[in-house]
């Protein structure tokens, strides 16, 4: 299966996911992965909300775009929803391709678009108060690299 896209409501184990992905793609020349985790920078909790009718279909479409554009042999795309504590994994993307540059570009592209175009809203709790996170100009700058 080339595409493995999941929206997860509870904690996942990045090592187990990478073990399965490596096992499935031992013939690929290059595999690039990105793991995003909640930083321990003072926030107590992070919450990711999504909009069910659009979020997972949008992720699948993004995955297919990556597979086609970089001729991937496989793409893993996992994204948490719900509440997370510092150190908890939020997102894991892995791309397997014949050559290194394809795998790097696909993982980078997938992350830029997950950050800026996927249907997630993030808020964090600091000192007992919840705050919604606004998108950063930086996120859009990431997108602009691909047009």
């Amino acid at each position: 299966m080339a595409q493995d896209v999941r929206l997860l409501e509870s904690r996942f184990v990045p090592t187990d996911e990478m073990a399965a992905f490596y096992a499935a793609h031992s013939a690929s020349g290059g595999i690039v992965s990105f793991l995003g985790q909640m930083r321990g920078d003072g926030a107590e909790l992070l919450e990711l909300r999504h909009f069910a009718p659009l979020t997972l279909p949008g992720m699948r479409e993004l995955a297919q775009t990556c597979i086609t554009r970089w001729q991937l042999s496989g793409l893993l795309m996992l994204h948490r929803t719900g509440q997370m504590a510092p150190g908890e994994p939020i997102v894991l993307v892995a791309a397997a391709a014949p050559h290194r540059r394809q795998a790097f570009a696909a993982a980078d592209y997938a992350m830029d678009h997950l950050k800026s175009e996927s249907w997630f809203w993030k808020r964090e709790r600091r000192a007992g108060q919840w705050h919604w996170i606004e998108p950063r100009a930086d996120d859009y700058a990431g997108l602009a690299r691909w047009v």
Partner: protein
Amino acid sequence: MTARLVFLGRLEDVAGGAERDVTPGPLEAVLASLAPDLAVALLGERVRMALNGVLIAERGGIVLRAGDELAFLPPVSGG
């Protein structure tokens, strides 16, 4: 029967809840029934709408029927 408004992200805070049941009718009439600050927030130019789970390209001419769900989607901040 009612229609339902769904508020994502920070719009939930403005609305004081993740969703609200409203009387069906033209969107203008529905918005006019809400608190002015909420109506203004929902009409922000970066807020998109999905009617029954489908993104709407044009804002004009929307009429909510009984059982319809209209979601308001502010700019995302995922990943």
